[in-house]
């Protein structure tokens, strides 16, 4: 019968002002780097910031931030511990450094569980680090977190931009707010983001050198 968890997820985000999923079709383009840097930067500017790593197959933000030795508190659910001022939630609290060979439906189920039991404190920003692809995690974030906005990352590579274009098409079709596109790992002068991509009506946020 009905899955009770779906009825509390919205409540869990009640006190979170803005929710930003850092995504982009391909892997290895700097999504995790961007999500972690963005969270750090917001926290330094005294915004109350959370970071949720939803890349269950290749969680990376704990490595990038150097998170170690912290663990959530149990308090009518679980409360993400703070690291450098960021409320940080990751499946690695439960998997350690062990391999996590989960199928998509299991990842989906685990995401629902974590969204249902995690009690974020009052936050100005919650940054979500997404895995590559437009599989279960992206579909579930869209389905379950109605207010989510997407920040898309790409690189100058043609393959990466092809994949991003596909993701952007789906997001546009569903009317999801896309904050903008960030070009990462630029190697030449001037943006190499195809005009084709920018013509889809999404702000270009700038480039970061390799």
């Amino acid at each position, binding site marked *: 019968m*009905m899955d009770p*968890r779906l*009825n*509390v997820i919205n409540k869990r985000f009640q006190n979170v002002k803005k929710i930003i999923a850092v995504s982009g079709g391909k892997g290895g383009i700097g999504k995790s780097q961007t999500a972690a840097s963005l969270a750090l930067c917001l926290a330094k500017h005294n915004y109350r910031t959370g970071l949720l790593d939803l890349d269950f197959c290749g969680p990376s933000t704990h490595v990038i931030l150097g998170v170690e030795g912290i663990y959530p508190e149990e308090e*009518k659910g679980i409360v993400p511990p703070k690291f450098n001022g960021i409320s940080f939630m990751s*499946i690695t609290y439960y998997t350690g450094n062990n391999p996590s*060979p989960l199928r998509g439906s299991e*990842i989906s189920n685990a995401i629902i*569980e974590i969204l249902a039991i995690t009690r974020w404190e009052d936050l100005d920003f919650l940054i979500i680090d997404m895995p590559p692809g437009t599989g279960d995690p992206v579909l579930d974030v869209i389905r379950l977190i109605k207010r989510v906005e997407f920040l898309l990352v790409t690189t100058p590579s043609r393959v990466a931009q092809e994949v991003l274009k596909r993701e952007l098409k789906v997001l546009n079709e569903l009317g999801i707010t896309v904050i903008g596109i960030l070009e990462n790992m630029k190697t030449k002068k001037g943006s190499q983001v195809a005009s084709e991509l920018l013509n889809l009506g999404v702000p270009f946020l700038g480039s970061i050198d390799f």
Partner: protein
Amino acid sequence: MHEWALAEAVVETVLKEAGKENLKEIVRVKVMVGELQQIELDVFNFAMENILQQGGGALSMEKISLEVDKCVLRCKVCGEDWYYSDSLQDLSEEDSEAIHFVPEVAHVYVRCPRCGSPDFEITSGRGVWIDYIEGEK
């Protein structure tokens, strides 16, 4: 006490469904608790009781019955069926606690007893859900 979050989900769902069905009175609610998550039933009941005291409307504790659903796993590689309770003996307390929070983490710590694969289905006993709500309109 992370059980609280799940208890809250169950209570909200029962009230919501009862509302949808226009039930004047809730006669009986059957809540299933999957064995995989090793929910502490006392803690879970305590949480539901507290939440209901803060405003349970048509719902009260004596209407709710809990039942634990035995957890069965099935290997997708070799087809073996087995009980989670048999795997549980080999798990450290830390590992079974991780599964308590996020049941899918079982794929990290549990293996098929026949072929060693982590690629198995949880065929029963996963999560907490509502089996049925009986009421009067």
